[in-house]
């Protein structure tokens, strides 16, 4: 009888130990995961405003947005319009892309007609759509909001939501 009780006690103690260790271990893992999350300052930083009013056709502007290079190009009449990708500010068409190859993250160069990635030979058209080589997707359009002739990167406006839907 005493033996039975003792066994039940050890079983209970074992279960309690197991549960505590599992919860504690899980909490520790969560803490370690959190330690590697981007810091709040990193997440909060990064609204970049660009003035497009003075840009001429074919002109290229480059800004840094959340540590990434963003290219803003006012399209010329020779460049094929693309309603699913062009950002229309004040009636003018712009290509606005994070200039990072969707293959493995190199920075493609604008040749005057296309974007060419030196790393593995990927190519993109003037709207940033992949046309040749390993890149699997068009270059990413950063979140933006339109404010007159200003483009606010890092805020999501209705125009961005529309493009995002058309691209997904």
């Amino acid at each position: 009888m005493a033996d039975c009780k003792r066994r039940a006690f050890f079983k209970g103690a074992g279960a309690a130990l197991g549960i505590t260790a599992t919860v504690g271990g899980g909490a520790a893992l969560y803490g370690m995961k959190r330690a590697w999350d981007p810091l709040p300052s990193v997440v909060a930083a990064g609204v970049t405003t660009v003035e497009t009013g003075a840009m001429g056709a074919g002109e290229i502007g480059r800004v840094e947005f959340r540590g990434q290079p963003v290219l803003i190009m006012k399209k010329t009449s020779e460049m094929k319009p693309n309603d699913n990708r062009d950002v229309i500010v004040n009636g003018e068409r712009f290509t606005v892309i994070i200039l990072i190859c969707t293959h493995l993250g190199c920075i493609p160069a604008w040749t005057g007609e296309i974007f060419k990635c030196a790393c593995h030979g990927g190519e993109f058209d003037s709207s940033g759509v992949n046309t040749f080589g390993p890149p699997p997707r068009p270059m990413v359009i950063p979140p933006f909001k339109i404010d007159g002739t200003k483009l606010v990167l890092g805020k999501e406006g209705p125009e961005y939501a529309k493009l995002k839907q058309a691209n997904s």
Partner: protein
Amino acid sequence: MAHFEKANSVGEWLDQRLATKELARVIALEYWIPKNINFLWSFGMILATMFMILTISGMFLLMYYKPDTQLAFYSVNYTIMQEVGFGWLFRHIHAVGASIVFLAIYIHMFTGIYYGSYKKGREMIWITGALLLATFSAEGFSGYMLPWGQMSFWAAQVITNLFGAIPVIGPDLVVWIRGNFVVEDATLTRFFALHVLVIPLIIMGVLGAHMYALRIPHVNNQDGEDIDYEAEARKFKAGDRSRSKVMPFWPTFMAEDIFTLAVFLVFFFYLVFYHFGFAMDPINFIPANSMKTPPHIYPEWYFLWSYEVLRGFFFNANMGLAAFGIANAFPFIFPFLDRDTNHVAPMHKRPLMKYWFWAFLFVMIGLTVWGKLPPTGANAWVGFVLSVSWLTLVLIIMPLFSTIEKKRREG
């Protein structure tokens, strides 16, 4: 209660407390190694020595290195290289050592493959070895990031981006690994922690497991012979040393090892003093710049073969990534791809697998060469053919040939 008497020597004093005599007997004096081996069996000890050399040179680099994106480049290229006494030497030893250790690893692996040392009880030796390859690769990659030059930065950018291809969690995972949207300070400091503490600790643990895994099955030999260790050890201890098929780890086996090791170290220090350039990419002497990609990005030579398997499918990134996944997983499944599981024999005694072995070695070298060439024009197609050949050799020909061999032997 143990018995402690007045000891007549330091050795005896220690033996009473630590059983040092028994310890030496078990791990060395009566740890039996077959005689029928060659210099290739010394590469295990060469690797252990290289790990020691890397650890010691690394400790001295650590005393001046500064893990901060603003300071890292100059702490390495100015402070360590120009100011610290013999800093340049520690750096060259560390960089050349990191490169040459992979040469030794590949020789060691191909020795194991050639003599069939990965099966019939030796699977765990091989699998812990595969873990060492993985951890050494992680160590090499994280270390390459620390000088924060252009290659450090862009290699980190490209490799962390690979995780973005994992379905659903990929993009978030990339940001998590980097601690930012791009590779920057948080990334450098965490890879620094991995490089100088976390991964070396793991390596030491796995190294212990690797050597322990050798004890039960014992080291293989040139003919794959199944040796009766107890009988041969008895013969040796009875004094019939020349007819016994085994020798003790210490002093006999180590005497051979130390000779091969000495030759290897002469070669190593020749590289350190006269040919260190191959381990120091000139592009990495330009400080990291996140806004400018170098025209041609390539990893260190020891990653080239798997990088080329990735690039080989130049027309489809997902196929390339799948092949790359297989290339990295392949060491772990390798013992099970040889379907003739119970027959240990060197390749020259295997009628079909010998062709497989040389073809495999040839394709691995080919992939390494083409991994360094720009991926344009005909090179892209050569890379494609090599990648497909690699996959075919590993996933189809190896199981097929070994199955046929087994059938023939038994039938």
